[in-house]
């Protein structure tokens, strides 16, 4: 029996336990400011609901964002250490890809899960500071893995629209939010396509807010914590 633990903290805190690609349990905490407090209970309760012991988890997959800094790290740190503690294999996926997959599947209808969908899809998520993370997808491949044609990037919504208009792309939108179950399902699709990745580095897409002091004697710019 191979069980999968899926974690995503790119918006709220979401943890799911899957077996053979099917979610046995999923815990969602929508609050975007309590990742650290929530992550332990979320993992423990997802395992308990699924009646799965930590040692039964053979793979851990985590959403790498893109997402604002602090929350994203909580999920990745937890995934790294859970894998370390259980000896499970560790994988990473791009969180926006999981939304794209679900949206395409919803469009096509579950019966025709692997039928090619038509028309590009724009997936966005809140990047704070009046910006959005975004990526553009053309559809699903034969294994159900979304094909990303642009992004992920971070821009102001008006700039994203302008960019698409200039390129002559009319893209559909989705209201779906990220969930760990979707992360797990995407991973299973990647596995069957042989395109799974061990890369779990965080997709920040922004540099740290820090200013190199121009004048070494200028104490005005506080750059230290």
């Amino acid at each position, binding site marked *: 029996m191979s069980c999968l633990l899926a974690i995503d903290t790119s918006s709220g805190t979401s943890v799911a336990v899957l077996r053979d690609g099917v979610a046995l349990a999923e815990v969602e905490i929508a609050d975007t400011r309590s990742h*650290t*407090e929530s992550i332990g209970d979320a993992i423990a309760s997802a395992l308990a609901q699924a009646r799965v012991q930590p040692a039964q988890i053979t793979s851990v997959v985590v959403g790498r964002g893109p997402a604002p800094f602090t929350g994203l790290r*909580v*999920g*990745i740190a937890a995934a790294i250490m859970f894998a370390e*503690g*259980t000896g499970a294999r560790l994988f990473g996926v791009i969180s926006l890809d999981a939304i794209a997959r679900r949206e395409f599947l919803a469009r096509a209808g579950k019966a025709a899960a692997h039928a090619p969908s038509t028309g590009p899809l724009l997936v966005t998520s809140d990047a704070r500071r009046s910006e959005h993370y975004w990526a553009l997808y053309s559809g699903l491949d034969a294994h159900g893995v979304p094909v990303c044609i642009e992004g992920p990037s971070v821009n102001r919504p008006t700039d994203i629209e302008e960019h698409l208009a200039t390129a002559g792309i009319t893209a559909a939108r989705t209201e779906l939010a990220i969930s760990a179950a979707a992360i797990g399902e995407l991973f299973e699709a990647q596995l069957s396509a042989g395109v799974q990745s061990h890369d779990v580095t965080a997709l920040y897409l922004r540099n740290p807010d820090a200013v190199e002091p121009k004048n070494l004697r200028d104490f005005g710019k506080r*750059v230290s*914590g």
Partner: protein
Amino acid sequence: MTNWIIRPATEADLGEIMALEHECFPQDAWSAENMHFELLAHHTTYLVATIDEKLVGYAGLSKVPASDQGDIQTIAVSPSVRGKGLGRALMDALLNEARRLHAQEIFLEVRADNPAAQKLYFALGFEHIDTRKNYYQPDGIDAWIMRLIMPQRSTGREPIVLGIESTCDETGVGIVRGTTLLANVISSSMDEHARFGGVVPEIAARAHLEALKPTLESALAEANLSLSDIDAIAVANGPGLGGAVMVGVAAAKALSIATGKPVYAVNHLVGHVGADVLERGQVETPTVALLVSGGHTSLLLVRDLLDDVELLGETIDDAAGEAFDKVARVLGLKYPGGPEIDRAAAGGNPNAIRFPRGLTQAKDMEKHRYDFSFSGLKTAVARWVEVAEAKADSGEGEELNVADVAASFREAVADVLVSKAVKACLDHNVPRLLLGGGVVANSRLRELAAQRCAEAGIELRIPALSLCTDNGAMIAALGAQLVMAGRKPSGLSFGADSTLPVTAVQTL
């Protein structure tokens, strides 16, 4: 540091020991034959203290392996160096040895007319349990029998605890067994902060995420253990940089669930105090602790490591380490500023410039008796340098003497830190001071602390530098103390608290 050296006695010391024996105990000195026998006996430990290779004290412990009792047989300190804490240092060294030999009780005899010695023994935890009449002849002075019950260790196997530290720019993983250090691995993001002249919180947090796994694996390799050997996990949940602390907390929780081992959320600052158990087996209390780093400048009164820690004062603006970094920038020196300024100050005159000592005026001492302020000092140095350079440029003055500025600045910082710490000890009648934090690496701070503590009769504790800077071992050590005291684990709901008060030793 104190200028004496304590080492095991050898046969070659016999002559000097006997000279001091006759000087200290003119009426009832041991014979050279007896002393020689005791020095060489298998069941004894004799230590000598020397200053510039001249013997100034000695002390002996007797502990038979079959017995769990030990005796302090003798202790002598040359009259020329009394009142500087040497007697205490010799006693501490003997008691450490007794602890190592698993002694449960230590006995000694002291003259009823020697209150100075009695006071020292009381301070070490000895009790007066009996009196032998007319013991010391020919004076007919009574002997007090005093006993120290050694602090008990847990009777069961000592817990192996893994500690995670991520409150600033060091990712630390340490492993201890009870009070024994097994591993202490640190990965620092210091170099990445250099071009910014100070720690950038987001850079530190990103580095923690990347360093966690390799640091954990190195620590396990160093301890030659696997995760299944670990009994509990401890993590610093604050105070510190919020985003940085979160990485360690999330990691600790997931590791706890994955391994089925309990997690203990402990206070980073109290962890600095707890580091001392790794060198001494315990934190002797009460103690004042002066914790000085790039993020903290705090004076703590520790009456009990797990249950009674009080914040006496802290910096109201910059941390002392920050002041070093900023003044280093003013002087065109590199980051981190502490070691750079230490180097630049060598050969400089610490009294060349009288820089301000923050919050030491009479009016400040009412409200901020134990608080610190380094912002004014930093500005004063910047202004002084500006003026000096302007004068040099216009030909009115000499070139800026960087060594003098660095030495004078460093003196001002060390002076105010040590003065307030010693004052805290005296005000609260606490006979010991513990230093912690990265700024402890500063040579002048150590020197001045040693000097002022010796003058005031305060015992100074400075753990090894690897335990003073931020590290996972101190977090593991404090966690192990909680485990051994039978405290319950922290659950999984605790958060990262950037302003966690020192009164919260453990967050449940």
